[in-house]
């Protein structure tokens, strides 16, 4: 009804559909405390936005979604800036590599496939892990037994060279670890349009051994800056950032997140995680179905030498 033309996606979309999608994903991200990029990019692909534009615009929206969280943690001094900068060094390299790879895959006509397959793997594994975790937590609560986990485990990672001291995190570890982790998450940001918090947070706790109090703030620092770098690189090299699209999604998400946070405060964590796992697995299944079901038209066109 109220169609708006997206100049980079080059398509007309109902403005309320975009606001609604932004609101829904924003609500989920407020509810579960996740970024939401990993749900938004597939949804954009489902409504017909070209996958490269979905990624380029979503990475821009993640900047908006993560910056206020980062500022809030900064005010509370819950950011390890030294760790953040080391992660970011890897993240910048990773996101540059990701944009380079993205451009080549697009020229080969395989970028849509790579985006979809990456999402199937990522959503499939995260959804399964979350489901297992929440079912276990629910069973444990009913059974009444509590298992204690070790917070910090010494493993192979502590034998690596180039050790650095991170005072805020009270760590003395090899710089290779955070640089490598940052690099990997940077590649994900460029190719999938996600912040990567779902991967960064557990890796910082279990792989790097950072104290939980600074993990969220530091990961938000890394996510804000890496998605900013990925946005600029995508805009400069692949012209896939649609600011009209990103702006409408942000508007919806900001409002949705407020409601999500309020509702989330009144619900139980385990059931919530189980619910999110169902949503994630549903999106994963839909993407997988699109890959394996025979397409209605086997052929597709693309113009050589874009504009």
């Amino acid at each position: 009804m109220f169609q708006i033309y997206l100049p980079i996606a080059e398509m007309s979309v109902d403005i309320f559909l975009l606001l609604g999608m932004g609101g829904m994903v924003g609500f989920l991200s407020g509810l579960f405390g996740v970024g939401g990029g990993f749900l938004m990019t597939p949804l954009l692909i489902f409504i017909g936005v070209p996958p490269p534009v979905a990624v380029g615009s979503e990475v821009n929206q993640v900047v908006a979604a993560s910056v206020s969280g980062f500022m809030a943690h900064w005010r509370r001094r819950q950011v390890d800036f030294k760790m953040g900068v080391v992660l970011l060094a890897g993240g910048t390299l990773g996101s540059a590599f990701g944009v380079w790879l993205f451009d080549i895959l697009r020229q080969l006509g395989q970028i849509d496939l790579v985006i979809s397959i990456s999402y199937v793997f990522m959503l499939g594994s995260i959804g399964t892990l979350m489901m297992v975790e929440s079912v276990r937590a629910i069973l444990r609560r009913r059974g009444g037994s509590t298992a204690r986990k070790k917070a910090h485990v010494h493993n192979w990672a502590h034998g690596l060279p180039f050790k650095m001291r991170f005072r805020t995190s009270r760590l003395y570890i090899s710089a290779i670890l955070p640089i490598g982790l940052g690099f990997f998450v940077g590649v994900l940001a460029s190719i999938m349009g996600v912040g990567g918090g779902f991967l960064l947070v557990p890796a910082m706790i279990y792989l790097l051994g950072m104290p939980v109090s600074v993990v969220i703030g530091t990961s938000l620092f890394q996510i804000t800056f890496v998605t900013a770098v990925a946005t600029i690189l995508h805009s400069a090299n692949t012209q896939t950032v649609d600011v009209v699209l990103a702006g409408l999604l942000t508007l919806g998400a900001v409002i949705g997140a407020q409601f999500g946070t309020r509702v989330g405060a009144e619900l139980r964590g385990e059931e919530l995680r189980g619910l999110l796992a169902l949503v994630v697995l549903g999106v994963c299944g839909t993407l997988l179905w699109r890959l394996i079901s025979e397409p209605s038209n086997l052929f597709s066109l693309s113009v050589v030498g874009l504009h």
Partner: protein
Amino acid sequence: MIRPRLAALSIALAILALAMRPATAQDLIADLSNHRISITSDFKGTELLVFGAIEGGGDVIVVVTGPRDNVVVRKKDRVFGIWINAESAEFRNVPAFYAVASTNPLEELATPDQLRLYEIGLAGLRVDAEDDVDETEETEFLAALIGLKQANGLYPEAPLHINVFGGRLFRVKIPFPADVPVGSYLVQSFLIRDGQVVGAQTSPLEVGKGGFGADLYEFAYEDGTLHGILAVLGAVMAGLLGNLMFRRP
């Protein structure tokens, strides 16, 4: 840049050839309702009115050709249970848009040679495959290309009929879909008598993005880095503003 010039040159030559025929150019006069189609943020497709007059009878054919590009056609194939782009074929000089309207079915109006000479009708369209494409592939992929263009409304499929009033005035509406490609278009009107093209007129048509969307698109392609930096600043401001507005007391 070279191709539009070549196209313009070949059309100029065709018109020059027509000038030497018995009928004069005045036998056909045509114009467009609009020489520019502007794609603004609420664009839902449009119709272009081509109208004119003929003198001394005959049939009229109107051809609208969009900007020509090289296009890769890709075919999906099943690999390990997943449908992926496998084979591909590249074609040169593919019009982004191509519509033909006529007073009578094309095959009744002119010989295939004449249609091919003036590139009238899909059968007359001169689209060349790259050298590495073999003949069977070419037929298959070209048919797929035309099919996809038709499905998107870029090569209108239903025959567009030109109405003639009082044997002299003609008019036809050419439909353009919402995702019509931007660029320089040509609208050619032909006057046909006894199976021969005896008069032709060419009018230019510009399809461009209009308003805010146009500026954004141009900016994004001309200075992607600055566009990206501003996109990030906008996102940062939106994020902070949203947080301020909803902060609980």
